[in-house]
């Protein structure tokens, strides 16, 4: 598909009609036309990927700011032995100066059949460990937030490129035309890099993520212009009835122009969306018990909304923890990581349980992780950078953990390893590009063939990199 260079036929067929698809097909009445470019009828119509996928939708639980691997999913008891003493090896270079080994203040324990060790921070999540595939050998390019956010979310650290969610909705469309295809949530404000994390860049704007501030519980504030504040629903219906009558008359003498039909349908869609979208975002419709099971936090609420959305066919949901970079514990990692994990651990466990109960778990791909991890050694005091308490960790792009679960993922296993201190990925190193390639594979795409022509070049999420990590696949 070319960008910007839309042929008239494409322009016509691209007009986004969801429920009006049937009418449109009849209207076009030209089988050849449909066969030629079936994908373009509606930019958000469900589309088939390269091969039959295991996962049909994605929930990205983004621990923005960089959670520490040695305090969560990559236990290194040896650090406690060296605690306060320099490591026998030189510290790798990270953003700031670091000092002695820093043993994890958290207890680890084995969970499930697989006996994978998880720290007390994620004791609820760990109950599902046999369905979780822990990747302990992720690595990124630099120890700075800005480029690493972009790398994790768009596959490119600096330049403006479409986000992962935009690629997925471009490739798969969405299953519910009454809701945004790609939703990015963050309670209280936007994560660092703001809308660049869910940008569509050179893909059509319709593939851009819709940002939702989940601090607000009122669904009417979550989707722009979703509520008609000026008349009753029946009055508005009456307006639309006359509008459509006039539009039909206008259309009749203009033969079957698809653009006109598309616009007619879009009003019907919008009218239905007012009810459906409001409903989807309204967690007040859940039982008290369910709400409680997600933990009564902003993060739990986000995950509950995420579940309601994927249940209704939304393709890609991203849940960032809180504004900017909350997991960035340069100081007081014990207090801060405990608080942060406490805000989301129950929610993750409840989300997985709910998806299983609803039969959606096997077709929903869940990614948990930050943009990088943290150093196994302590960060040294710097007046301008931290509070000088010498009880936090610096950024670490050399090695960190993320986990995948759900659609097509072989759970109960650990892939890769960091060195003996948890600093650097040494066994089966997995670059962020490899993670993307693997996730696209689970969604049915050959990441090297999933391209978009722009400015004379075929762009990919993985650029010229990426290798599928086959061990992940069930």
């Amino acid at each position, binding site marked *: 598909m070319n960008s910007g260079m839309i042929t*008239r036929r494409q322009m016509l067929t691209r007009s986004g009609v969801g429920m009006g698809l049937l009418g449109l097909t009849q209207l076009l009445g030209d089988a050849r036309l449909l066969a030629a470019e079936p994908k373009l009828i509606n930019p958000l119509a469900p589309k088939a990927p390269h091969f039959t996928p295991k996962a049909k939708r994605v929930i990205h639980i983004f621990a923005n700011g960089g959670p520490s691997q040695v305090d969560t999913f990559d236990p290194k008891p040896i650090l406690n032995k060296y605690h306060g003493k320099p490591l026998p090896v030189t510290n790798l270079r990270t953003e700031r100066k670091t*000092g002695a080994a820093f043993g994890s203040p958290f207890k680890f324990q084995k969970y499930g059949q697989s006996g994978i060790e998880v720290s007390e921070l994620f004791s609820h999540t760990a109950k599902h460990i046999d369905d979780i595939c822990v990747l302990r050998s992720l690595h990124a390019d630099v120890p700075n937030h800005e480029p690493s956010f972009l790398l994790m979310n768009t596959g490119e650290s600096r330049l403006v490129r479409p986000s992962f969610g935009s690629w997925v909705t471009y490739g798969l469309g969405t299953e519910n035309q009454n809701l945004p295809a790609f939703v990015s949530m963050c309670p209280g404000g936007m994560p660092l890099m703001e809308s660049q994390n869910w940008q569509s860049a050179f893909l059509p704007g319709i593939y851009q993520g819709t940002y939702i501030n989940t601090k607000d519980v009122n669904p009417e504030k979550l989707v722009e*212009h979703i509520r008609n*504040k000026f008349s009753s629903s029946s009055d508005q219906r009456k307006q639309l009835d006359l*509008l459509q009558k*006039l539009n039909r008359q206008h259309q009749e003498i*203009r033969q079957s122009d698809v653009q006109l039909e598309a616009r007619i349908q879009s009003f019907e869609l919008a009218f239905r969306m007012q009810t459906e979208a409001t409903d989807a975002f309204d967690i007040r419709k859940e039982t008290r018990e369910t709400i409680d099971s997600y933990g009564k936090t902003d993060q739990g609420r986000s995950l509950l909304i995420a579940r309601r959305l994927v249940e209704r066919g939304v393709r890609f949901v991203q849940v960032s923890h809180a504004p900017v970079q909350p997991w960035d514990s340069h100081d007081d990692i014990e207090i801060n990581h405990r608080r942060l994990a406490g805000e989301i651990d129950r929610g993750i466990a409840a989300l997985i349980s709910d998806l299983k109960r609803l039969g959606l778990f096997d077709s929903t791909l869940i990614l948990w992780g930050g943009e990088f991890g943290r150093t196994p050694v302590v960060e040294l005091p710097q*007046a301008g950078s931290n509070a000088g308490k010498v009880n936090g960790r610096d950024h670490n792009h050399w090695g960190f953990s993320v986990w995948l679960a759900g659609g097509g993922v072989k759970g109960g296993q650990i892939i890769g390893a960091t060195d003996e201190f948890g600093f650097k990925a040494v066994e089966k190193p997995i670059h962020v590009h490899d993670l993307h390639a693997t996730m696209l594979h689970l969604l049915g795409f050959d990441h090297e063939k999933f391209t978009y022509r722009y400015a004379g070049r075929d762009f990919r999420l993985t650029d010229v990199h990426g290798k599928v990590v086959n061990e992940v696949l069930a």
Partner: protein
Amino acid sequence: MRFVFAPILIIISLPAYAAEKPSAAQLDFFEKSVRPVFHDYCVRCHGERKQEAGLRLDSVAGILKGTDMGAIIVAGDPAKSPLIKSVRREGDYPMPPDKALTKEKLEALVQWVQSGAAMPVGAQQQAENPAKNHWAFQPVKKPTIKAPENVNPIDYFIASQLQKEGLKLAPMVDRRTLIRRASFDLIGLPPTYEETESFANDPDPNAYAKLIDRLLAKPQYGERWARHWMDVARYADTKGYVFTEDRNYPYAYTYREYLIRAFNEDKPYGRFVLEQLAADKLKDIKQPDLAAMGFLTVGRRFSNNIHDIIDDRIDLVGRGLMGLSIGCARCHDHKFDPVPIADYYSLYGVFQNSFEPKELPLIGEQERTAEVAKFEAELARKEKAAADYEQKMYADALAPFRKADSIAAMLLATVATEGFENARADKWAVDRKLDPRILDRWRKAVRGHDDVFGVWRELVKVPQSEFEQRVKTIVNSVKINNSIKTHLLQSRPKNRDELAKAYAEVLSIATVASLEKKSTDWKQLESLMVGPEGITNPPKADADKLVAIAVKRVFRILRNDAAKFRSSAPASPPRAMVMNDNARVSEPVVFLRGNPNNRGQRIPRRMPEVVAGAERKAFTNGSGRLELAHSIINPENPLTARVIVNRVWMWHFGQALVRTPSDFGLRSEMPTHPELLDWLASTFVMDDGWSMKKLHRRIMLSSTYQQSSQADATTATKDPENRLWSRFNRQRLDFEQFRDSLLFTAGQLDAKEIGGRSVNLFTEPYRKRRAVYGFVDRQNLPGTFRAFDFASPEQHTPQRFQTTVPQQALFLMNSPFVIDQAKATANRTSGEPYERIDSLYQAILGRLPTTNERNLSIEFVKSSNDSAEGLTKWDQLAQILMLSNEFAFVD
């Protein structure tokens, strides 16, 4: 002949060793024993898909070319051949990386190189050069027209093609539709009912030509067409993400004002391009036209990464002005088009040697009103407050390190940590509550500066018992800074601690500005301590880390306060976002694989070979921007004129002749009518002197433009995509046209003031200025802009997308802005229901209703109620008409 061979087609200058024709046996050896090794072990990373280090081993040309660093084979000398070194796993690049070749395979390679590295070279040279014949790289030639003089040339090209397909132009459209079409097209607004009727009934056969002239003379023409160009120029009012810096471009609006003026004055396109790239270099430039250079400077700032900023500018100039995707050559030669990586860095050099002055030039006549004076005083106060605070902030943070006790402690620490690795020294320092960063600087300093620290280094080795007596001898025996010498001799330190104290006293004094420091000795010490690289003057990034977070926050507030005041105060005078040439010009180097740390050959600044030919000259005038601009508008440049007339055609017809308007390269589509494109391009440059208004007239006066948009059954079948232009394209209003029409219909549009600062379009109370003045926040583009396919300000936009999504309908149904306009429109009507309905139709759709429509409306108002929320039934009817397809489309 300006055509050059494409670099992708590498024509090899044969190395001397291959000059002799290889024997059949040699070639056989290559095919059987060498090529299979490359194929099995190397091409995964050095082949068609990946070219690690720029190397391809799947073609003879690739093998001969070698890596980015140079040749890999020295024929006849395996030991000197990097290829052999690598497979022998000697040197920096052991290959293949995971496992060595078997001895047998390795020996085959050695033998091959030893015997002259024969390959079937001849075959390569005969390869075709696709770029050579590519249509867009051929000179523009004015085609001959074999038709009577009174036939419009555009119609001639279109009609003759249609005739071949057994088709003809669609009938002329009626005058009511025509005035609506022309009006939206040129000024972005509908005609009023009265204008429509008077045009429809005008008996003058030249009424249409006069209408076009009238529309072109309106200042709203400039507003409409400036916006088209703003899509090309990726206009925005903000920089995107730049850490904690203020994100606004306070003067971006002056670039928009320039564009509006340029279109209204019909500035010749050549001159327009020249000014946007190099207004600062033009002797006859008028001060306000300096704002033209916003073209280069309103792009994204990529966290202030200079390489990405330059890349954005190269992309803009390449695709925006010449339809050439030069940006593809940032990391390697362009894979499809004849743009080698060196041409990218030639242009990189132009922008690398240009800078944006800190204080942008004032433009326009400045009236020295009391308000302006007050603004300037206030701004100066705010900026001074920020600057003073910043200075004091760093001075305060660094002051403790310049005190004698700190200096003494640091000096002693350098001895205690001698021989430590940095990490260990850091830890040592932290444990003792010393700043590791500053200690690091001391540790480095005491190792050098012999005439200051030489004595120190000697004396700290001396045992305590001999200390006192050795001071004098050592001090007198070496070359030493006199201020130090005097003080050491006076203070007579008895041990290392006292020595440190003595040093510290002198060095601390040297950091204080008020002391007499006339002697070179004092100056030396001052520079050593607090000079640009001084021990206690760490780089800003480090010093920044010594400042408490709370203090920094105050500074940020002060700095951003000044920046905001500058950008938002009404009396803030306009400035031009210019670039200037660097005082010292340096030639660029190629960054191999796009990596600035991987520097390749040095190259001159000059035009890409594909447009300027192999004989192109290097730029010599400053940065070369002016020469670049001249070369772009050179009538012999095959791309510039074709690209702009194609864009103008697209903005009129909703679709372009070349359907990839910013890519005229090898992968572009052929023009639907190549001769027409060339006729337009050559007439535009040679006959019309790059006049946009003349181009509009030529296009709009053609029958092709005045056709009906109705397709009959034959044309719909034979020309489904309208590539033959067998009818006009029905076009949906874009966001700006739609929004402005709502305001216009409601009698609310503020159309008088032309120019001015950007306004937020989406917050209440709603601004009534035209949408072209809407504030564009690049980082977080407002949702309504996005929902309506507004041009992405990220990069240059070749053509807007057109989607129809329910978010658009939601805005129209529920946004207070649309409701306001419906109410205002309904309020303009009065009288009996029939009269009101007629007036509503006239105001909104520019016509009277049919009987049937009138009856439907009557029925609606009779059966409807005013809503409890204050929307009367008349408001509701007005909204319906404003939401109709008739309102939203131009036939």
